């Protein structure tokens, strides 16, 4: 699943959603059962998460997979 912006390689939508939810990377990581480094790497485009983790992040942030991870062609 493509989780990054084509221009920068970063997942800015996830970062914005996390900040809007008032969560730090460490807090989101604790909710989804990951480490802060993993959340940071997903936002930075350095790690491609599994669908299971993507869903956990979506549930934690109240978003859909399309909102955070879908990219057009």
């Amino acid at each position, binding site marked *: 699943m493509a989780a990054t912006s084509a221009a920068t390689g970063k997942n800015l939508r996830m970062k914005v959603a996390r900040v809007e939810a008032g969560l730090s990377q460490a807090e989101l990581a604790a909710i989804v*059962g990951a480490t802060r480094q*993993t959340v940071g790497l997903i936002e930075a485009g350095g*790690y491609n998460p599994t669908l299971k983790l993507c869903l956990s992040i979506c549930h934690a942030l109240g978003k859909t997979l399309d909102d955070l991870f879908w990219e057009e062609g």
Partner: protein
Amino acid sequence: MRFTKSLRAFGGPVDERVRAETDRIYKVGFWILAVGLMVYQYYGYWKSQVEWVYGLVDSAHAHEYVDPFVRVLFFAAFLVIAFLLYRRGLTGIDDFDGPSESSTGACLNGAALAGLAVGVLTAAVRFVAQCQLLGFDRMRPLDDAVIGVFMGLQAGFLVFLVLLAYHHLAKRRLAKLEKDLDDD
């Protein structure tokens, strides 16, 4: 079970990225260990053979240079791997429904590759063993080459038989998996 759960809770959340990286580390370590052990055993065998051929040892057990424990460990490890490969159902070869000639061709290719690898490895380790035990003056590289070719042919034939058997077993395993998944 409760004890395992407590241990997991104590260790904190299992991060999928950390687990993936750990698995990769284990995988690299496994291959280094497995290949290293195989080469070590093979070298030990040929070293003892050179010792025996050139009369460097009097012991009747000259061919038992390699520790039997290591030998058992080595074969046990590869038996487990063979079983796991069988259970996996042979991914990577997707021409199961094709004609049997293609299977034989794949087995022949694999056997040729294995034969070549074993031949080169045999010649190389015997060359090194001769160099170590006899020194450059008394070395006979032609012997190493002939033995390498002989061992390569032998290994190629054996690998061909093993691959054919593996193919047959994996085909049955795949058919069983397909049957279990059938939702008609």
